[in-house]
């Protein structure tokens, strides 16, 4: 068996995927917007930031604070990006989920786009 890694939880995986998808533009508001659009659920900004904080503690994401502009009343933005261990953990988490789905008929696999 491969080396054991702390797999990110379900919501953590969603947040990491959002961060990965947003690239350079991943900060609280955009991450939340991406989550709400893709999951069609309401997500509080607090939940996003507390999850990002947890992921940063695990060193799965890293953050950089940028000065705010007038649109934000001069308040800072904090941009997040996935780290290499974060990418590995995310991939491992998704693979584990895929393996768990195999043979479970009540949750059919979505058709993959080719």
């Amino acid at each position, binding site marked *: 068996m491969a080396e054991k890694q702390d797999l990110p939880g379900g919501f953590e995986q969603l947040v990491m995927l959002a961060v990965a998808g947003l690239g350079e533009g991943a*900060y*609280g*508001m955009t991450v*939340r*917007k991406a989550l709400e659009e893709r999951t069609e659920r309401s997500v*509080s*900004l*607090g*939940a996003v*930031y*507390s999850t990002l*904080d947890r992921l940063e*503690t695990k060193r799965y994401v*890293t*953050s*950089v*604070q*940028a000065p*705010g*502009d*007038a*649109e*934000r*009343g*001069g*308040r*800072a*933005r*904090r941009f997040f990006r996935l780290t290499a261990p974060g990418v590995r953990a995310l991939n491992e988490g998704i693979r584990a989920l895929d393996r768990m789905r195999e043979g479970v008929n009540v949750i059919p696999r979505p058709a993959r786009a080719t």
Partner: protein
Amino acid sequence: MTATAKPKDSEMLNRSARVFAALLPDAYRDEIIGDLIEQAQRTIEPARGDRAARRWISGQIAASLPSMLSLHFKQEEYSQMKHAKWIAAVAIVVMGSVQAWDSGILEAPIGIAFMVVLAIGVGLIGLFVSSEGLRFGAAVLSLVLLFLARILSPVRLPELALVGLPIFFILVFGPKFAALRKPPPTSGAT
């Protein structure tokens, strides 16, 4: 949208939003409020107006509080204290227990004993709270409870501030000393 037409952030936060914002953890307060102001100005205000935008911000901050509760118990400068936090906690429990025992607290009415235990408990919890405001509040509450217990007790209690003052100083000044020993940041935040 141009930046010049934007109201200042203080104009975007109504009274309840300011109260809720004070309860956000220090580490993310600016970012969260900034994000909400930005979104409110981009989407809420053009569609629903200024007052609705301010109400929306207030509601969003309030909705964020429960999930951010755990972050009050985590802070960079506090993580520098490491063992010192636990040593301080043990010191509070030992000093508090010895002095409470010596004071004959067991002979005091249950309400007074409860106040002393609560004061020590609040002090202990305060050790692990990151927000400076909450930590200061815990220290003050702890002192006030101990003074009240002494004043209200029919049994003569010794100077409970002997317990309370160390709690107060540890809670208020402990992290400052820890911060002085903090190494320079190695990554991320600027």
